[in-house]
């Protein structure tokens, strides 16, 4: 994986020093909260309902064991002994003291980590495919591209006060595991005439006006990528709306201009920007790519798995995915135990996952946008030992992509913008469907919950989505069906009037019963929904 050189380290160290100084000036009353707010936000520090929340960047979701252990250490020392893995492949701490923030950032910097640009109206942490370099279906590792963009976007002097936040995702496989087209810019690495380049989608997003990004350019060669993106951002920085925070994302600009007119403006700007010489030479990409060289895996490692232990076999069938190298596998660790808080992990669990990565997965871990953890490079022969240790730590729930593998935002338990709680609803649904055979009978079913219209829990992209709203002062939940954040990307549709907390769980049960009655052989829930439409489900829910 990527390793800092002296330049990268110096940048992060300078940022720690800068923020320590800003915190000092704030605590001394030299700057107001209004002036401090954008500064702390650019360092990932939010003021929440009960405390400060710190969002740590995990670039493209990749961590070493040493970095993972540092996350556990911080949780233990400065928080309440746990961390929360988020849909942006990041980690959040919910109970941070402002005075401690500089020390935490210094601890992070000591393991090549930071919280830079994890919030604020700037280019945020870049997300990617959690199976990068291991997935059988990728054409190349997307992360060198993402790292190139991380460096370009870090402390970008022109694009740090954009109209609104800006999120970029990079993938390199046909299967989209990163909700690529629901980002402000989604990049898919594709091949043309033997060269890799970027297909650039611009203007996707969730929030209150969800949109799927249109294709703006089908192939941008590596040599032009930064110039092209600089042009995309400059048009947005100049013409994106600043009069209304809800209309400030790039998706609104593109919606109002039309994709063709936006493309025309970008192409015009690109011709100019390309003349400035801002694109690094291929040698820089090659330097980065060399650091992402795949680990030396033994191609003669045994390919069979001893499935003698039935519980282990259930876990293998659910959590293990195909690796591109024979004899190896990708392990998906569920952070969704029945009744637990989706994405939360204790310090001890984080340490254990770090140990497993060090012993069995060439020192690497990944965070997924579905709030789970991945060990990307595991020998099949080691799966049983890994499972035993995960099981002992409460990390062996076999529910990947099943109805209880729920994405949920922090909601009203933590978030100052929330209308409703998300976590208790997730817990109730997981408990209602706790029977694993029943979950498996329902098959792939992605359920996503947001506690308000901002859509941090991706509810628009859920096969089943839940949106918390405020109805005359009480928490109310709307139900959406038919969304997807994968390569079959689509936005969910609201079923009708909302429900209270128990009502929404009942409604989901009626939806899944209807699906079982309607489906044809091998059809997933979302496929049935697309085939039969909303009417039968509406009928089942509301009678």
């Amino acid at each position: 994986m990527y390793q800092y050189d002296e330049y990268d380290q110096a940048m992060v160290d300078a940022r720690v020093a800068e923020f320590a100084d800003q915190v000092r000036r704030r605590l001394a009353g030299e700057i107001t909260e209004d002036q401090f707010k954008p500064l702390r936000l650019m360092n990932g520090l939010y003021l929440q309902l009960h405390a400060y929340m710190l969002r740590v960047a995990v670039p493209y979701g990749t961590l070493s064991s040493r970095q993972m252990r540092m996350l556990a250490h911080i949780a233990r020392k400065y928080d309440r002994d746990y961390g929360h893995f988020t849909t942006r492949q990041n980690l959040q701490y919910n109970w941070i003291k402002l005075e401690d923030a500089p020390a935490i950032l210094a601890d992070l910097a000591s393991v090549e980590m930071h919280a830079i640009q994890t919030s604020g109206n700037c280019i945020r942490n870049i997300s990617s495919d959690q199976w990068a370099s291991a997935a059988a279906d990728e054409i190349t590792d997307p992360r060198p591209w993402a790292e190139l963009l991380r460096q370009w976007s870090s402390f970008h002097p022109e694009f740090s006060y954009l109209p609104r936040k800006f999120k970029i995702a990079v993938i390199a496989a046909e299967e989209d595991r990163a909700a690529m087209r629901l980002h402000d810019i989604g990049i898919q690495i594709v091949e043309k005439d033997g060269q890799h380049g970027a297909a650039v989608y611009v203007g996707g997003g969730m929030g209150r006006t969800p949109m799927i990004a249109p294709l703006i350019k089908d192939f941008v060669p590596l040599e032009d990528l930064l110039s092209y993106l600089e042009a995309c951002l400059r048009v947005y920085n100049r013409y994106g709306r600043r009069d209304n925070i809800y209309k400030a994302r790039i998706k609104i600009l593109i919606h109002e201009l039309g994709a063709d007119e936006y493309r025309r403006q970008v192409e015009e700007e690109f011709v100019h920007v390309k003349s400035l010489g801002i694109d690094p030479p291929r040698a820089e990409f090659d330097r980065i790519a060399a650091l992402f060289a795949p680990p030396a895996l033994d191609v003669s490692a045994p390919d069979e798995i001893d499935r003698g232990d039935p519980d282990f076999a259930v876990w293998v069938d659910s959590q293990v995915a195909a690796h591109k190298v024979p004899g190896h596998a990708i392990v998906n660790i569920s952070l969704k135990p029945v009744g637990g808080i989706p994405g939360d992990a204790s310090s001890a669990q984080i340490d254990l996952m770090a140990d497993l990565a060090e012993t069995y997965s060439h020192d690497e871990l990944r965070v997924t946008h579905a709030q789970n953890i991945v060990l990307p490079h595991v020998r099949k022969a080691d799966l049983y030992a890994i499972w035993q240790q995960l099981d002992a730590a409460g990390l062996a729930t076999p529910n990947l992509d099943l109805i209880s593998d729920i994405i949920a935002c922090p909601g009203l338990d933590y978030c100052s913008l929330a209308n409703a709680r998300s976590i208790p609803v997730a817990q109730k649904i997981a408990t209602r469907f706790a029977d694993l055979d029943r979950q498996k009978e329902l098959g792939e079913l992605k359920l996503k919950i947001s506690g308000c219209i901002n859509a941090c829990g991706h509810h628009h992209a859920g096969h089943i989505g839940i949106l918390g709203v405020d109805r005359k002062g009480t928490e109310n939940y709307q139900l959406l069906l038919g969304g997807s954040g994968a390569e079959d990307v689509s936005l969910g549709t609201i079923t009708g009037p909302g429900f209270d907390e128990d009502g929404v769980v009942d409604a989901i049960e009626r939806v899944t019963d209807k699906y079982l009655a309607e489906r044809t052989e091998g059809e997933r829930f979302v496929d049935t929904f697309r085939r039969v439409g909303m009417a039968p489900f509406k009928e089942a829910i509301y009678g």
Partner: protein
Amino acid sequence: MVEHLHSDGEEPCVTLDAFLSQSNATAVRLEPDEDARALIPYLDRLKLIEVAFPKFRDGRGYSSARILREAGYAGELRAQGDVLVDQIAYMKRCGFDSFAPEKPLNPADVEAALTRWPDHYQTAADKAVPIWKLRHG
């Protein structure tokens, strides 16, 4: 370094509209929603372009500044308005060489902000050599 924190006794800036209709002014003020490229035909006779930052959160002026420098403007480029010490380093990278903040800045803080970053990842409108070039010569 900051050349002037503010200057006195100079020709007052005219608005962009006034400038475009009255040909002899040498100082012009650009509001965030005004197109910096409208000035490109006149850059060689402009001595001062003042870019307004009514709110520090409004980042359009950063693009205006780069566009002007990229077009070869060599005169004074001033950031005026809600200009805070924490934005000054980015402003300088985008080509500003003078600052007229509404609220006075502490010179020591300005000095610290402008010398904090050892290097920079990207090419911008200043003379800084980007890190990728330092790596590869």
